[in-house]
């Protein structure tokens, strides 16, 4: 899509949000949801360069699990705790509560390190799921039933995930570098979903976009990212 089109759409959305009766959210929230997407694909000051080193993180977590290695944990803490806190604050958690929840998330990382399976997820992904679930427990009335990998009712995988085994940690790295290259209106969809707690129906309502547009932007974004973990040499 030509970039002037995006800007037209963006201005359109902002005008609507600024207009009377349009925002069902406090103006500050609506503005926060739109802050950035109209600018460059990578928002300076909000999004940092990826520094993922999947092998190193996995090795540190393994040391925590196997040897209760405190120094390894402290290294993981220094990298991830400020990111978990940033995540919680983006999700409108009060800063004091965010710091408290972040501590619980990092303690969970220490306690459950032996449950980490590097063939299923990278370390950042695993920590993301812990933070996501902890926040839902605290902030929402809604419960979130979890998929249980040991559920006897689970339909088994047809074959061992041979290719996935090698790549789980690498996905994160590839996706992290690809996110900055997404067209802004696609990156915005992902940010609203993952960092602003908006379901795809909420996004359509928030941005006054037809549901079909939201779905197609989400699918385009996923398609682009998917090509990153499927085009593996």
């Amino acid at each position, binding site marked *: 899509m030509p970039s002037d089109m995006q800007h037209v759409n963006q201005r359109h959305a902002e005008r609507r949000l600024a207009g009377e009766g349009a925002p069902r959210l406090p103006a500050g929230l609506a503005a926060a949801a739109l802050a950035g997407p109209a600018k460059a694909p990578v928002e300076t000051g909000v999004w940092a360069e990826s520094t993922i080193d999947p092998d190193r993180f996995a090795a540190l977590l393994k040391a925590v699990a196997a040897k209760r290695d405190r120094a390894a944990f402290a290294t993981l803490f220094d990298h991830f705790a400020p990111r978990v806190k*940033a995540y919680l604050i983006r999700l409108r958690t009060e800063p004091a509560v965010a710091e408290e929840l972040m501590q619980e998330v990092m303690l969970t990382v220490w306690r459950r390190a032996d449950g980490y399976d590097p063939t299923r997820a990278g370390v950042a992904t695993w920590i993301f799921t812990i933070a996501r679930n902890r926040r839902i427990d605290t902030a929402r009335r809604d419960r979130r039933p979890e998929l249980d990998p040991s559920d006897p009712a689970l339909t088994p995988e047809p074959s061992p995930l041979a290719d996935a085994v090698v790549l789980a940690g690498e996905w*994160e790295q590839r996706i992290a570098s690809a*996110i900055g290259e997404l067209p802004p209106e696609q990156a915005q969809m992902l940010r609203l979903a993952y960092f602003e707690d908006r379901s795809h129906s909420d996004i359509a309502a928030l941005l006054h976009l037809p549901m079909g547009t939201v779905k197609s932007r989400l699918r385009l974004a996923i398609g682009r990212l998917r090509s990153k973990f499927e085009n593996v040499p």
Partner: protein
Amino acid sequence: MKPTHHLSDEWLIDYAAGAAPEPVSVLVATHLALCPDCRASYRRLEAIGGALLEVASPVAVGAAARESVLARLDDPVPIPAAMPTPPANFPSQLPRPLRDYVPNGLAALSWQRLGRGAAIAWLRCASTTPYKMLMLRIAAGGSVPRHTHRGNELVLVLQGAYVDHLGRFGPGDVAIADDSIDHRPIADKGEDCFCLAVVDAPIRFTGVFSRLLNPLLRR
């Protein structure tokens, strides 16, 4: 057997991102339990969360918070509450994400008849979203009266199978309907068909006689 009708990306994203309302989470997690293909996609969608966490600009953590965590590493680990044991006659084929909502098995639900061939039972959930969750039972060879939807409807087949103009839906399959679809699902003759359904607006019966059922579903 693997399902052939899958959830589309936007529903998997809602759940991976943590933005799905509870009834949608229940249906997505149950489908994931039954569908290895969607589990593989889902893992990649969670990896997007990991990547976003990685590229989020860090917010400084106070030295006191860091010290506090490091000082608590040896604290006794709180023991999680044990999962309640299901009754002996509990249908073991129900995937775990669904069990808390059907604690005493399908037969113990309060079923309301829907015409001659079908029945529904609402499932309790604390969520305040417009989404409601229900079990649908279509008797072997029976049908759900012709109806359309005012909003989204997700139907996940748990047991048996049904056919409508969109195709045949068996265990683990998901049908996604909106207000453009007017259908009359018919169950296979062999066995009763049980489905989990999630709706965000009342469905509306469109058949000549089944219109009388509409008040039943206002909830």
